[in-house]
């Protein structure tokens, strides 16, 4: 306490600018380790392993048409796994994603059929409904501060009940009426559910959308402000808010993005099959979440990629179809998935620990 006191504040010079070199305490990590630290590397190796396994076990898989089929299966999961993955990186998840797809398809189908309007009226109404469901989820989450598990579990149950009850009420049936002869159907089908030929193999358009959207999502995630905000709100919401990230906007828009995905897949289902079964979609939400987790997204948020879930969805499609091509009992599918999920998570965990250890 007998410190000498200065009459004026101690004016100090700012620290000198360091030379353009390291202080020698941090070594460069090897390139291989840097690569392994990427969230999608583990799932990429896993997808290759599953692919090689079925190439050996199920000879029909080697044909191009089988691959087109596998990719189609993967794309229907992958299209939804993308927004679900972004949401997960943003720190939340959405249990209503599976039934929301059916809600969207039912809305489009019933609006256009019951009102005898052009199907595009139904498509737009479905878009509005899907975005509204997403916005509701996000708004509830932000306003109440409840965990997204509870909020979306509620929405999941509501939508599941509404899907069944309203369909029964309107059509008197468990499925919607066939809308394939309505105005605009061909046009909408060309956009949402067309096919094209590549070297004699029929490829579904959803495969293209899936890969294009994945590329877009990757760009947004890594190269835009919004992507930065997604990582930030998932990694540390309070810090993000404190430095000026619009947390409420980011969270609500992420839920609406899931709504957009549900609308897109719902429209694909509707225009592929012309009719919608009101009880479908239950359980799909877990498949989407599993694909995102297998794809290297951290369940607690703040870490992941948009490419990982592409491989995650591919693994699902591969196993789903591979079992059929191998001639095994398809009942094994879910068991396979469980093993894959656990395996992939363990690999991801191990890879991340090894690669980020300093």
């Amino acid at each position: 306490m007998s410190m000498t006191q200065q009459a004026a504040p101690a004016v100090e010079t700012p620290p000198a600018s360091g030379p353009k070199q390291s202080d020698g305490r941090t070594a460069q990590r090897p390139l291989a380790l840097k690569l392994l630290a990427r969230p999608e590397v583990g799932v990429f190796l896993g997808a290759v392993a599953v692919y090689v396994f079925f190439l050996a076990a199920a000879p029909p898989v080697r044909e191009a048409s089988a691959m087109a089929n596998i990719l189609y299966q993967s794309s229907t999961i992958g299209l939804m796994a993308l927004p679900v993955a972004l949401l997960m990186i943003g720190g939340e998840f959405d249990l209503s994603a599976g039934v929301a797809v059916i809600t969207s398809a039912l809305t489009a189908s019933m609006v256009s059929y019951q009102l005898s309007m052009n199907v595009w009226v139904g498509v737009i109404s479905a878009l509005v409904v899907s975005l509204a469901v997403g916005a509701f989820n996000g708004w509830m989450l932000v306003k109440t501060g409840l965990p997204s598990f509870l909020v979306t579990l509620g929405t999941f149950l509501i939508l599941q009940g509404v899907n069944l009850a309203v369909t029964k009420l309107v059509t008197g049936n468990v499925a919607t009426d066939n809308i394939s002869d309505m105005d605009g159907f061909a046009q909408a089908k060309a956009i949402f559910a067309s096919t094209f030929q590549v070297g004699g193999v029929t490829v579904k358009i959803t495969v293209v959308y899936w890969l294009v959207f994945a590329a877009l999502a990757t760009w947004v995630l890594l190269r835009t402000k919004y992507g930065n905000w997604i990582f930030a709100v998932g990694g540390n919401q309070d810090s993000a808010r404190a430095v000026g990230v619009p947390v409420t906007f980011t969270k609500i828009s992420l839920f609406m993005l899931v709504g957009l995905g549900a609308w897109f897949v719902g429209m694909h289902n509707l225009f592929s099959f012309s009719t919608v079964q009101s009880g479908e979609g239950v359980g799909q939400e877990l498949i989407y979440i599993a694909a995102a987790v297998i794809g290297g997204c951290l369940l607690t948020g703040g870490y992941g990629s948009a490419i990982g879930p592409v491989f995650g969805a591919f693994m699902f499609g591969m196993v789903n179809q591979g079992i059929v091509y191998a001639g095994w009992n398809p009942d094994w599918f879910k068991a396979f998935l469980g093993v894959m999920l656990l395996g992939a998570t363990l690999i991801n965990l191990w890879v991340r620990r090894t690669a980020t250890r300093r």
Partner: protein
Amino acid sequence: MATNESQAAGAVLKDTPPTDGTPTVELRRAGKAYGNIRALHGVDLQVHPGKVTCVLGDNGAGKSTLIKIISGLHRHTEGEFLVDGEPVHFSTPREALDRGIATVYQDLATVPLMPVWRNFFLGSEMTKGAWPLRRLDIEKMKKTADEELRNMGIVLDDLEQPIGTLSGGQRQCVAIARAVYFGARVLILDEPTAALGVKQSGVVLKYIAAARDRGLGVIFITHNPHHAYMVGDHFSVLRLGTMELSAPRSEISLEELTNHMAGGAELAALKHELAQVSGVDVEELPEEEDLTASVAATSEGKS
């Protein structure tokens, strides 16, 4: 100062502060209640450009509440909060940032899994190109972050490493460098030296001095009177949510400041009580006159 000229490149307002003596930030009888708990009451505080205002206080004195009001995390429930002489009610930290008030929080407000450079620019990212192709200007951000960190004396060869892998002191310096870079006019530091070693504390204090010399108003929250006295121009001591002391540097010595920090008047009372208990040697304790410094203490502190 020569090494800090790159600061001028910051995405900040470079307005010359008003010279008519209006404080940049001023609190008048401000307070905050959380439900029926009064965390802060009747606090007066002025922040002038080029001055360091130190806010001292023990744990639970209301220091953090005070910062949260000024930085826009919480709204004050009583009194007035003025920026450049006009009353404001911030509802988000963004609004405070837009008025040139930047804060380094005690928990540093970093996202551990994100790379250093992304953390540095989080919430104020640099972009290039026109919408919808507007994208992050990664090159420029990395270069700027690197320069700013070097000015702080931190050399990181891999700005891509997650900020969670840095040491506490390094993270603190990144957070301060970020706030200095973005804080155009007022910089709030919430116990920046609390978790640091001697040498790193010195670096932080130098940076506070540098920020002051650049014309920033600095609010330096600490419970270390020695650190406060090294750079402070004005000292305010908070106790139990009220202001016990508010004095310019010319009216207070380090001893007095330390005594106030240690409880000042309360210690004197404690000494008096102890004197009545047999077996306690009060002769060794400091005299009462030393404990109650003759400074402009506000009356609330005695309650």
